[in-house]
């Protein structure tokens, strides 16, 4: 009791001494500013190269005489690029929708239902988190290949839908919702699907938004799986396409333009939904 009583006094005393403190702080600020600038410097350099006229290497570190959008327009009209972008969008968007639906349904059942084998299943899912995807790359590829799924969209997308992080996140969130909400609806005679649609979905919107952002980024940025599974432009995603550009003899200004365009959706997500990303990493450890 005495402790809590003295705390306000202590903080006000601290507030009083604050103005004397900043003397040691300016170099911390300078160091932080320097680190931040170093971190974004590669982005700035990339944009300058992407906007520089072709045939004129802008390195070492010199401002180009003029800026041009030629590289960007040329990349956008190049064969393949638009297709890769569309493929990346399909890969990401379909995965987001399906994972959100299946994971929220499973999360609801794991959190609020009793059914035989529930805990065993949950533990098995948890255990699969310890198996790195790359260790099962070969069997999954052989499986898809035997089902004639190589270079098809379903073959690309379906194996990535088994996402244990998503199921766990939804389960933990729904576990924290009061049981009364679901019981009341059931007493009123609502069907299970109705309970899911009118109670689970609206109440889990914040966590669904967060999960949606992460699933989008995971898939948009995914590389190894699309690399082995897509073998033509029909299903090739942007990340894989970029590595093809690299190997052909192309000017850096073109390669940088392509890379810059490929990152636009991620950067949009970042600028619009940064708060969601930052808070959810701190609270849930989603990676």
């Amino acid at each position, binding site marked *: 009791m005495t402790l809590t009583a003295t705390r306000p006094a202590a903080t006000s005393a601290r507030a009083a001494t604050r103005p004397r403190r900043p003397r040691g702080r300016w170099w911390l600020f300078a160091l932080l500013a320097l680190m931040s600038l170093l971190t974004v410097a590669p*982005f700035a350099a990339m944009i300058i190269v992407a906007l520089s006229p072709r045939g004129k290497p802008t390195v070492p570190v010199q401002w180009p005489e003029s800026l041009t959008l030629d590289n960007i327009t040329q990349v956008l009209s190049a064969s393949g690029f638009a297709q890769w972008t569309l493929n990346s969008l399909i890969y990401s968007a379909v995965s987001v929708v399906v994972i959100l639906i299946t994971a929220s349904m499973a999360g609801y059942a794991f959190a609020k239902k009793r059914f035989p084998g529930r805990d065993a299943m949950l533990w098995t899912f948890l255990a699969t988190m310890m198996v790195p995807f790359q260790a*099962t790359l*070969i069997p999954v590829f052989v499986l898809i290949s035997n089902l004639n799924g190589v270079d098809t969209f379903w073959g690309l997308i379906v194996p990535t839908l088994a996402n244990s992080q998503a*199921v766990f996140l939804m389960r933990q969130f729904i576990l924290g919702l009061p049981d009364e909400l679901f019981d009341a609806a059931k007493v009123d005679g609502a069907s299970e699907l109705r309970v899911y649609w009118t109670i689970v979905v609206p109440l889990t919107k914040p966590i669904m938004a967060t999960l949606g952002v992460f699933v989008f980024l995971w898939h948009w940025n995914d590389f190894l799986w699309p690399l082995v599974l897509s073998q033509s432009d029909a299903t090739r995603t942007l990340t894989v396409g970029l590595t093809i550009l690299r190997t052909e003899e192309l000017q850096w200004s073109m390669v940088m333009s392509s890379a810059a365009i490929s990152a636009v959706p991620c950067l949009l997500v970042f600028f619009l939904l940064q708060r969601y990303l930052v808070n959810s990493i701190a*609270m849930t450890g989603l990676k």
Partner: protein
Amino acid sequence: MRHRLRDPVTGLLFVLPVLVLFLIFRIFPTLGAAGMSLTNWNIGGEWDVVGADNYVRLWNDPNFWASLRVTLVYAAIFVPLTVLVSLGTALLLNAVIFMRGLFRSMLFLPYVTSFVFAGIIWRWIYEFDGLLNGLLTKVDLGPVQVLESSSLVLPALAVVSCWKGFGYSMLILLAGLKAIPGSYMEAARVDGASAWQRFRSITLPLLKPALFFVLVIETISSFQVFDTIYVMTGGGPAKASYTLIYGIYERGFRFFEFGYAATWGMVLFAIVLAISLIQRRFLGRGNT
């Protein structure tokens, strides 16, 4: 009451889609990987059980031992680098108030991009006539062939992955720092503890769980590095950046020796499993 009785069925029905996906694409392939590692499965799909032959071959394969060494050296550079950078930036973000939000955004920005994107930018930076050499020449340190040097290539790759990924660990550590009650610091300050003493005896012990989590996460990710290597070096020069995953990829998708590639995968599995189990053990202890 009627609804309670219906629960077992509806519960199972709600889980069914995820259960099917997991059985087919996570659990079955995990067992399949172990099974395939005992066969000579090739591109034609024909296979015979060859017992432990693949493991014997792996044991005698200089490429495997080289890749294990490369992976360990890479981890030994990447993990301390990333933990230090994320701890440093988290401490700075915690100390500085002015423009903190802007700095946090700037530091976190690379995290949302892809490793392929990071690889492309940094390949340009490391080029012979690239940005880094441009800067080095200005201070007369002369051009350095970073990605062509077998001693510089792993540190260079570690820097790229660190740049792309440290924002995540920084946020975890920042949340850990924010959870330390301000009154502890105040009390220590009143007692005349220096900044270093406060860091050593208050911040560090209280940050230990978050720090340990970050350490494990970054260690696991260091064993899974692939994208940047594929984009920047292709495993070179002279296999100086030929990691475990690169080995799995090359065995499987250049030489189409699926059985042998699965054997490489089992080694990766064993390593990640060991790290996860160590984490369990330590976290269990830390909580009591």
